[in-house]
């Protein structure tokens, strides 16, 4: 039976690698990346995948081979009486330690670019998450928030392509998470905090905005949409939004 069990364990690396080869061919893989920074994340993902894949195959094959070869039923030799080896322990401590340290350092730049080095610019849009929708606010023609000409939409966010935009993320009630799979962006929205995010979108199109943090029974339906469009189209859409909003707004009262 030792043979059967060894082969069963061999199926782990064989099918394990197989699945990762076949899945992308059938579109079961990272969604298309349309952000300027996304390639750094995808590169790290693939880099770690290759590295861990190598370790995975090597250790699983070793496991299979030892199971196959040292089956008591078929192996006439006595087990080797050894309690370990100092040199071997040192080797397989230092080698992975160096590799892991390298991985840790190698990714720091990508993290800093995406989350730490905030561009010095005013926010293009402010997103306030609440159960179970995304409230989107633009500063309007005066470029300032909290003024009368602020523009509002719900679940329908438009952004210009080809330029860096800054998004301020807030929450009105519980935790939510602003997840744009195609732009490799995710950030929890926390009540009481305003958290900045920035992105440069490369390609026009409509993309899903997903809530990725459990926010209650309606979490699954907290769906938004990002329309990435050229600067002209974006400005035009803003103007249209403003016109609509003015039509429905009450006549202007004297400001305090």
């Amino acid at each position, binding site marked *: *039976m*030792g043979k059967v069990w060894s082969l069963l364990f061999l199926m*782990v690396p064989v099918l*394990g690698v197989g*699945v*990762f080869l076949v*899945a992308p061919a059938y*579109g*079961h893989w*990272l*969604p298309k990346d349309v952000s300027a920074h996304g390639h750094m*994340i995808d590169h*790290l*993902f693939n880099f*770690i*995948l290759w590295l*861990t894949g190598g370790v995975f195959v090597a*250790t*699983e094959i070793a496991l299979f081979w030892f199971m196959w070869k*040292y089956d*008591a039923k078929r192996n006439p*030799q006595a*087990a*080797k*009486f050894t*309690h370990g080896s100092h040199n071997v*322990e040192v080797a397989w*401590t230092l080698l*992975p*330690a160096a590799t*892991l*340290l390298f991985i*840790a350092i190698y*990714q720091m730049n*990508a*993290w800093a670019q995406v989350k*730490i080095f905030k561009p010095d610019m005013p926010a293009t849009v402010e997103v306030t998450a609440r*159960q179970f929708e995304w409230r989107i606010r633009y500063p309007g023609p005066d470029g300032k928030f909290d003024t009368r000409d602020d523009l509002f939409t719900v679940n329908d966010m438009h952004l210009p392509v080809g330029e860096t935009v800054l998004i301020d993320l807030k929450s*009105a*009630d*519980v*935790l939510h*998470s602003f997840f744009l*799979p195609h732009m*490799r*962006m*995710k950030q*929890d*929205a926390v*009540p*009481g*905090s305003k958290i900045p995010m920035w992105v440069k979108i490369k390609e026009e199109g409509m*993309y*899903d905005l997903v809530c990725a*943090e459990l926010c*209650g*029974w309606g*979490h*699954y*339906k907290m769906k938004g949409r990002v329309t990435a469009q050229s600067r002209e189209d974006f400005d035009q859409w803003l103007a249209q939004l403003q016109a609509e909003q003015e039509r429905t707004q009450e006549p202007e009262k004297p400001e305090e």
Partner: protein
Amino acid sequence: MAAIPHAHDDAHAHAHEHGREMSLGKFLTTYVFSFDHKVIGLQFLFSTLIWFSVGGLLALGVRWQLAWPWTKMPIVGDLFFSSTGGQISPEFYTMLFTMHASIMIFFVIIPILAGAFGNFLIPLMIGAEDMAFPVLNMMSYWFMWPAFLCMIASFFVEGGASAAGWTGYPPLSSVHSAAPASHTGQTLWVMGLIFVGVSSMMGSVNYMTTIIQMRAPGMTMFRMPMTIWGMFITAILQAFALPVLTAALFMQLMDRTIGTSYFIPEGLIVNGAPAGSGGGQPLLWQHLFWFYSHPAVYIMILPAMGMVSDMISTFARKPLFGYKPMIYSIAGIAGLGFIVWGHHMFMSGMSPWLGTTFMVSTIMIALPSAIKVFNWLATIWAARIQYTTAMLFALSFVSLFIIGGLSGIFMAATPVDIFIHDTYFIVAHIHYVLFGGSAMGIFGGIYFWFPKMFGRMMNEFWGKVHFFLTFIFFNGTFYPMHILGAAGFPRRLADPYHYETFQHLLPMNQFITVCAIGMGASQIILAANMIYSLLKGPKCGRNPWHANSLEWTAPSPPGHGNFDFQPVVYRGPYEYASPLVDDDYFPQTRPPVEGEDKLAHH
């Protein structure tokens, strides 16, 4: 001489001596409110296995919804959800995954490892009569009962059980209007976890004291089996981490009941209702919760690692490779485990600078795990492997833990975590560690120590069938989840398919659900095998596996006081294939043979 349950001849003889009927008081102190560590261990074992099946069924509910969303559930649909025409409501779905995880973590894996195996094995493996504090030990089991009752009751109160995720993040968990679906349920959840914490704390104090104080003559710390090392370091982890969780739980309880605002910020309006008095910080909960719950991941794996090391060495008929490095790496995991909790919070709004430090510590914690894997592999190298069911489960632990360990590196890498955080990649990872790792180790432990627990062997053929099916279906269930995660498929969504991005993943989810049902069904074989073997299994001697450690020198099952002789220990527990003796094993209690001290320094 008091008794131990089941098939213990002395106990039966004893009961007869004193007349036909055992007095009620005697029955209660022997089988129910027993001080005997073995009875308490078995109480934990059976309680947690029952919870295991409850938790598993809840998971199947989750799987049903993800494969065939909003369709009528077969068989149980009409029973439970007659109001919605037999389909799962989003409220109920949220409750399903919350309670699945809460039960599996706090009512199955933690108590089965520490409570069941820890209790049963610690005194036996170190050569003690019982635990240092038997009364405390009994209380640690009975404090689980208020927790059980809270959990059971929460399913029946208005609005149902907790639906705020097993992590119970505020404000969702602490503001009533945020989750009307789990009103009293969430309060009961908090109280249940507090009771589990009290129970664990009693256990861990007891285990530490017992292991330090009660070892048999000659049982030095570095002659203890890895199982004991795993339990010992786990107990230390519990003792340091648990108070933090308990404090956090009390804060949430107060936020929910008496209107404090530890976790609720200023001016929050949830569902139109003003919430709390303000001034709190939602992230504070996450820090406190993960300060416990990350170490808890190791509380859920280190004892299993110890048990697996013992099984592998026994059935490889070869000394454990690198005994001391194995201990140091457990200690390293435990130490580093206290400074990595922030990796659950990379996307939480915590400072990204802080994220960088947690990233480095988290990546480095992969190192001790890697060392353990290499040593297990080296143990079966040049061995003479006996393919028992226990060994197969132990080897599957190694195989699957490799996957769970490696996938952890993806989420430790902060930039990659941006994409895979809260996706099925995480779900795959945790199940490879906690099911592929811990639960497989637990299954192996059941097959391995069952003869000692009950004096009867389990059926090996059906054990192997159980292993084969569990192994196949486990991988079929959880391996594709890596792919789902790579596609960005988020967890905890009642209907992920109304996002266009994820619609093409439905067939894969259906495949997963079929495998999950198969995996659940395979566990019936284990239950049947246990029950049958308990009654009819062939009687075994003291040492059916020809193993070295002390528990195998006691009678099967051991009577009250465990040993019918004073065990004295002369060597470590892994002297298999020693050239000094003719047998391929060399029990810890066998008196020294000529030439042994020379070899010991080798």
